[in-house]
């Protein structure tokens, strides 16, 4: 899946957006163990997979970084709109309508 500059760290750790910190920790440990390059010398992508898992954990396990990242994540995911015809008034401080 190509989302260009955007990396879906939740998808990499196979956890949901709402996953509590403890779930992130267990998911990381499980994946890191499975993708450890020492144990997967025959898999050429093991090293880069391991690095991606590490990077995802670095962000999602840090509360402040995760909160910052969540803004980015939210801006890369489509929301279902109730209707396309009604536009909110420009400059409104309120968030647009969502179903």
């Amino acid at each position, binding site marked *: *899946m*190509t*989302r*260009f*500059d*955007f990396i879906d760290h939740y998808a990499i750790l196979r956890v*949901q*957006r*709402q996953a509590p910190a403890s779930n992130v920790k267990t998911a990381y440990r499980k994946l890191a163990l499975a993708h450890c390059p020492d144990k997967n010398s025959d898999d050429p992508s093991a090293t880069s997979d391991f690095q991606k898992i590490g990077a995802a954990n670095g962000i999602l396990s840090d509360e402040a970084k995760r*909160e910052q990242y*969540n*803004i*980015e994540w*939210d*801006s890369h*995911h*489509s*929301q*279902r*709109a*109730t*209707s*396309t015809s009604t*536009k*909110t008034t*420009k*400059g*409104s*401080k*309120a*968030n*647009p*309508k*969502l*179903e």
Partner: protein
Amino acid sequence: MNLSLPIRSASRNPRNDESRNHFMNYTPTSSTEAILGPIREPAPLNDRLIVGLDFGTTYSGVAAVYTSTPDDVEIIKTWPGGNGITSDKVPTEIAYDFPPNSPEGTNPTIKWGFQFRPEESRLRCIKLFLDRSQKLPFYVSPLETAAQLKKFNKNVVDAVSDYLTQVYDHTMETLTRRYGESFMASTKVEFVLTCPAVWSDAAKNTTLQAAERAGMGTKSDIQMISEPEAAAVYTLKAIQPNHLSAGDNFVVCDAGGGTVDLIAYKIISLKPLRVEESAVGTGGLCGSAFLNYRFEEHVRNRIGHQRFDEMKLKKGKCWQMGLRYWEEFVKRNFNEEEHAEVNVPFPGLPDDEEAGLDCGFLVMTAPQIKEIFEPVVKEVCDLVQGQVDGIRQKGGIVSGIVLVGGFGQSNYLYTRLKSHFNTAAPPPYSERPTHAQATALIENGSVEVMQPVNAWTAVVRGAVLRGLEGSMVVSRKARMHYGTSYATVYDEDKHQVSERYWSPLWERWMVSDRMQWHITKGETLSAASPISFHYTRNFRPGQSLIVSDDLIASDADGEPPASYTRDLINVCTLTTDLGAVPKSLFTRLTTTRGVEFDNLDFTLEMVVESAGLAFELKVDGFRYGRVEAEFH
């Protein structure tokens, strides 16, 4: 004698033109013409050659028509390696070989179609490898195919596109011989490709890619039509369907070499002929190639394993002769009433009374032949019955079954289907039909089994007609549920608390991975009315405006799930660049914590065609940029 007569000629003297224009108050172009372009095309430049290609599991066929002589459909019948013997189709078989003593890195040579000696190994049924969800028949070894491909550093798509390249080159050569080089240089050639009704979207896309690589034009120029639909197009044109009326349903059964494909249509109008799909396509791997394997087993058991293997290995021509008689005579013409026994030639095999060998012929009795046919015929009957039942359950009237494809030509299959569906006697005549009678007619009503002439080439002929006339099918049935995933505001009545998360951007409690299903499996779809998905998205300043969303499918027979699960199928990723959307259509907003973002509402539109999906992205009803679909 050379007379100089005053003829009005087209070639003009520029000085005459000048003076005439001056006196006639000539203006170079009218304003309407300048805006709308030339009012009339100078000459009909749009005559094209339409080439239909039926890329089958066991055999492939090519037909061509020139648009200004639409009744003149030509089937290519001569093939390389065919030794002057004509055939409506060519085997879908290809093999690679390295020339002897060739240095490393040499491209392998290709043999295809009829270019093989009987004992040479080759790749068979490569088409079935294009769709990972398709089962392979037992006689095709995936390991052997993989080993052969690996040896020549090829994959399945390479093999398919190499095969299609051979077919393309031969087609162009044949057409050039027929129409001449200058005609071919100035005439556009359009390809219409067929694919099974049950093909996945990804498999259709792969097939198109292979055709594109073979030189048949760009992916968007190549038309695709499902095989049973092509067969239906041809059949309805070929047999004047007098007994069919608007509202009736008919089932098309395309019994080919490897697969049997079914689809049902309801007639919307007879003149012009318009139909819509009335049942979702089904299919099975019970094509007539199985009969050959069952025949082989039969002969092996009759004459003994050792003698059989010896014959196949050392007397290849003897075995080929018997198999050919089976293929061309028994399979097509066998009929219980006419043939109490059939004599299959095996020249050179010594007489053996016990085995039933006499004068180089193997005697096969009608019950023996029926036993070979039975499982395949029964499966075809069951598949057809399944479609008929499905339509009747919904109160529809089935008035015909159209039998096409190689095995569709079979006399025995025709007779069996006929007796299966024509058992009920017509109801007694009465002035006014009673409700009971009407119900009885719907439940047991007889169904006419039709077998058009040229059943074997019906698909490729239909493909050409499609290219010629456009679609006669006004609507289709969705084969799966199609949807997209989205995030939305948490609603305590609909969602679990554990599913929610706080969105710093929307400043709401949200839930993600919700599924919105835009198309329900079995729903009637029309190419004229696209399906729209409405979205809204918040972009951070400077964020890339390239947006991608996954199209997700579910094969569930009941309700598809409300949230994303791992067993859902990721059909493709839809990517579009919103960079061309005017900035004025974005709404600048700020969260309470001062995070700025630009909100945009957009609509994704999907159009369902016979053999594929097309997408468009719109903002406020206008199209901005192309949507690229990358299939998984």
